[in-house]
């Protein structure tokens, strides 16, 4: 295996990024897609993939967003968006739903993030701004609640700094919980062994290494 550098093209756009994440989700796995960008991953899962979606408000077998007449106030995802039900679905209460997550039964969870540290620490619930009203929802449960926790985000913040960092400066969501980070500019393995660049998009490994404060390894 070696780092795949795609320098003949620009960064991944949002749909390409979602498709890239979807590509790494094994057929037949049980998956929780976090609120926001990760939701988009569902649109890129093959119809015959057999992937079963979990929503932490109490359902397995969640279908696509509800359209028009399908909207039912009793059936929403964790983002409170009306969704649909697929054959083979099951409903359960919150304690059972989070037991399912906490117990490590989900194969994959895809989350957004403000920052990911090279060791896999995750910060995605609070910017640390002193006047912000703290609100965590299921973020901390999700962070520790799947065999594989994938993060999906833009690599660089608006100020140009990389969001994969030596150590998170924002309040943590979970410690050492992330295994991979999918970004517009590259795919990274993170964890106890540090950051390994698996793929780059629009930038070379060396260009990434220059723009990031965390040491990068080639795959």
């Amino acid at each position, binding site marked *: 295996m070696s780092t795949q550098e795609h320098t003949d093209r620009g960064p991944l756009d949002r749909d390409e990024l979602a498709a890239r994440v979807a590509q790494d989700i094994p057929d037949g796995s049980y998956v929780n897609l976090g609120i926001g960008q990760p*939701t988009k991953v569902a649109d890129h899962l093959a119809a015959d993939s057999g992937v079963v979606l979990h*929503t*932490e*408000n*109490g*359902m397995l077998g969640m279908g696509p*967003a*509800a*359209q*028009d007449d399908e*909207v*039912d*106030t*009793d*059936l*929403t995802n964790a983002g*409170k*968006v*009306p969704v649909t*039900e697929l054959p083979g679905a099951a*409903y*359960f*209460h*919150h*304690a059972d*739903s*989070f*037991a399912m*997550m*906490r117990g490590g039964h989900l194969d994959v969870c895809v989350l957004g993030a403000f920052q990911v540290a090279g060791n896999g*620490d995750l910060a995605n619930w*609070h910017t640390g701004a002193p*006047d*912000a*009203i*703290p*609100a*965590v*929802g*299921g*973020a*901390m*449960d999700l962070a*520790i*609640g799947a065999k594989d926790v994938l993060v999906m985000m833009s690599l660089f913040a608006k100020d140009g700094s990389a969001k994969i960092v030596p150590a998170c400066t924002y*309040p*943590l*969501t*979970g*410690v050492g919980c992330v295994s991979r980070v999918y970004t517009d500019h590259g795919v990274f393995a993170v964890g106890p062994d540090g950051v390994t660049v698996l793929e780059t998009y629009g930038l070379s490994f060396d260009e990434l290494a220059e723009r990031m404060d965390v040491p990068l390894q080639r795959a």
Partner: protein
Amino acid sequence: MTRATVLDTAREAVDGIEDGSTVLVGGFGLAGMPFDLIEALIDQGAKDLTVVSNNAGNGEWGLAALLKAGRVRKVVCSFPRQSDSYVFDELYRSGRIELEVVPQGNLAERMRAAGAGIGAFYCPTAVGTPLAEGKEVREIDGRTYVLEMPIKGDVALISAHTADRMGNLVYRKTARNFGPVMATAATTVVAQVSEVVEVGTLDPEAVVTPSIYVDRVVRVEPRHLQVEGAR
């Protein structure tokens, strides 16, 4: 508790809730929110309440209306900050309401512990984060856990789909959410439902909240809630 009473009005169903009570309020966003019971509670007048619920109210109805009426001293929830949680935001920023933020799964599991007679439990969620600060930490089999305490309510206000006259409850889709857990965790459990059926009508295999947990049931008229459409 002895068998549930089926009442005629939401106002009767919230009778006797005392000032200073801890009230568990079901629902996740709009789904499973016991609107009629909350409105009746505003009418009933109990104040200085601690409310345990996933969110801290939307717009100016439901939980937000109870907050706006100045009845709530403290909110224990996982996600107070929403696009339309301005009533809570204003109370919080002006120091007129306390907030305890609890990870969503811990909120559920802590109530489950209260209902199940568990004194406390070691939980891996929030380890190493600001929400675990000041809490006891313990390593078990190589993993680090935080000690979490039960959350018990004086009253639970929940919304289910159908009750039988004994108080057995079934829910509908993701509106089930916190209802069955809260029903186990409060001294007095009040359920608003869309339908009350005769005993023997519900499938015993499919009852979600057995009657033992339910004290009062009231049928309410369905309301047509406005929700966001598809993304």
